[in-house]
């Protein structure tokens, strides 16, 4: 079985990532990125707090300290009133224009080679307090691009507070479907800017495994938040069976040999007017790409650092900075040893992300971000790269308007909308300023520069 074919079949979650996988070549990524956009008004109805209490800019998912603590607390805080229904819905529609039409091979099925309008996501959430100590964040999405639904996100938590050494401590357990889904900061894969991207966007290059598993795994995580400052989490992950994957329409990352191990520590300081966090995270898994040929596995070991800063003040002028760096060590025992579809037994990937935002009056937002992914040369693995590397870098600029989401907003907290424009510019794509597209023709990185207009609403 061709691993390329296997990977392409397995990558069902996201059209943009699917295209990356194609241009990246054999098994370069196991990109099963789950839905990026999340906004959950049922939490606001449960707590009585406006969206802006939990989210920077009055709209998800960038969390304030209040939102961070709400998540760590297991989504269970409330205004004390019963009868709240933990259900929300969300819709994301967009129009995408790329600098140059994509090739026929890169065209998304059902759509044109450029200038595409789509109802990208229609999601239903089970999100909120289920019991005094159990809460949920579960998202199911119909993709108007993929033309199918999937169970995107599952994070069901038990949390309780106790005193440890005289300090307030929250401890919890999470049953979840994605290693970085559980994280309370906006620096790791699942919750990092950009919070919505077009499925017609070319993507940001190969990603480390820790943020590429989408809903294809199930994890059991234990975490603790000590003295409102030290966060620690340990998770064990197993891949779903083929039957399980088919039931929820999730992509297949292959089968883990043993369990995947996720670890996370962070120091968080909330000074009310502003706050910061610094942390470390890591993931280790042995992946058997072909379920019909088990035994030999590719090993992926990810180690990252991250940091964030928020100036909130009186909430009129809010500044944030989020940064992360991840290094991935790959030992391709199967891909190199069994299939010879890599030049090297050992490869590495380095990913850097930085985003800064400003929001005025919880309404008007501007965000600038850079992305930079680099890897060593592997001509076979990165077949679409003219240099043999997967190096991809560029920037994202976004301006958005969120008219509601404040305490006194119209129909608060039911009516929520964000309208924005996002521009993605590429300096390098798959190795340099040019690469080979799916039809084998040379294409410039900047041809992928993308402008997206989006409408994101939730109730």
């Amino acid at each position, binding site marked *: 079985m061709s691993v390329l074919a296997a990977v392409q079949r397995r990558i069902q979650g996201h059209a943009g990532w699917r295209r990356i996988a194609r241009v990246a070549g054999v098994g370069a990524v196991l990109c099963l990125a789950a839905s990026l956009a999340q906004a959950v008004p049922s939490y606001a109805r449960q*707590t*009585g*707090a406006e969206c802006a*209490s939990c989210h920077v800019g009055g709209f998800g998912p960038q969390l*304030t300290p*209040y939102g961070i*603590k709400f998540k760590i607390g297991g989504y269970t*805080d*409330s*205004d*004390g*009133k019963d009868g709240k229904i933990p259900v929300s819905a969300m819709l994301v529609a967009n129009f995408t224009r790329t600098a140059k039409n994509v090739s026929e091979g890169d065209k998304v099925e059902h759509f044109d080679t450029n200038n595409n309008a789509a109802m990208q996501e229609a999601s239903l959430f089970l999100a909120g307090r289920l019991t005094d100590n159990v809460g949920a964040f579960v998202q199911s999405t119909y993709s108007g691009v993929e033309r199918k639904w999937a169970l995107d996100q599952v994070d069901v938590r038990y949390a309780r507070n106790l005193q440890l050494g005289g300090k*307030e401590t929250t401890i919890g357990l999470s049953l979840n479907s994605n290693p970085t889904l559980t994280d309370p900061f906006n620096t790791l894969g699942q919750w990092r800017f950009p919070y919505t991207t077009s499925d017609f966007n070319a993507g940001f290059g190969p990603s480390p495994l820790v943020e590429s598993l989408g809903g294809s795994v199930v994890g059991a995580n234990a975490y603790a938040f000590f003295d409102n400052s030290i966060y620690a989490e340990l998770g064990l992950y197993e891949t779903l069976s083929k039957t399980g994957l088919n039931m929820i329409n999730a992509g297949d990352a292959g089968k883990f040999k043993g369990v995947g191990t996720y670890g996370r520590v962070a120091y968080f300081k909330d000074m*009310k*007017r502003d706050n910061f966090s610094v942390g470390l995270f890591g993931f280790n898994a042995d992946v058997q790409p072909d379920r019909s040929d088990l035994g030999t596995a590719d090993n992926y070991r990810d180690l990252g650092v991250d940091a964030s800063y928020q100036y*909130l*003040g*009186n*909430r009129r002028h809010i500044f944030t900075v989020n940064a992360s760096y991840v290094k991935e060590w790959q030992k391709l025992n199967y891909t190199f040893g069994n299939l010879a579809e890599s030049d090297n037994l050992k490869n590495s990937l380095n990913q850097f992300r930085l985003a800064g935002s400003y929001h005025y009056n919880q309404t008007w937002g501007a965000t600038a971000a850079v992305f930079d992914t680099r890897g060593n040369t592997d001509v076979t693995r990165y077949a679409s790269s003219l240099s043999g590397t997967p190096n991809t870098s560029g920037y994202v600029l976004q301006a958005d308007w969120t008219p509601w989401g404040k*305490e*006194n907003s119209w129909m608060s907290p039911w009516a929520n909308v964000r309208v924005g424009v996002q521009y993605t510019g590429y300096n390098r794509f798959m190795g340099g300023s040019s690469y080979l597209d799916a039809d084998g023709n040379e294409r410039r990185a900047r041809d992928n520069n993308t402008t997206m207009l989006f409408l994101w609403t939730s109730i």
Partner: protein
Amino acid sequence: MKMHHICFAICLTALLGNSQSWASGDPKKGADVFAEECGDCHSVAPGKNKKGPNLLGLNGRKAGSVVDFSGYSDAMKQSAIVWNPERIDAYITQPRKVVAGGKMKYDGLPDAGARADVIAYLTTLK
């Protein structure tokens, strides 16, 4: 007699001085302090409760008495506190010292000036 007058004057000065410390708070600055320190959990919009009770008309109110707020701790309901500037100041300085067993997850506001400002702001809301 003269001594009585002196004592009275000292007491009056002390009382006025205390009152003036609240009066010196700036409600405008206090609105910002409220937004930074309190607004995530408390509202001053009429009838609106969040994780914590509404703080509109707090001055002179009995603790634990907002009728449609059901999140009070037993400790708060049984505290017999009637909120006035002095009690508010003591509470927001060290909440757990004033109401041991209370639910409010707040470590306290050590800046006396900021406390005066936010109290001045709250006492203007009726």
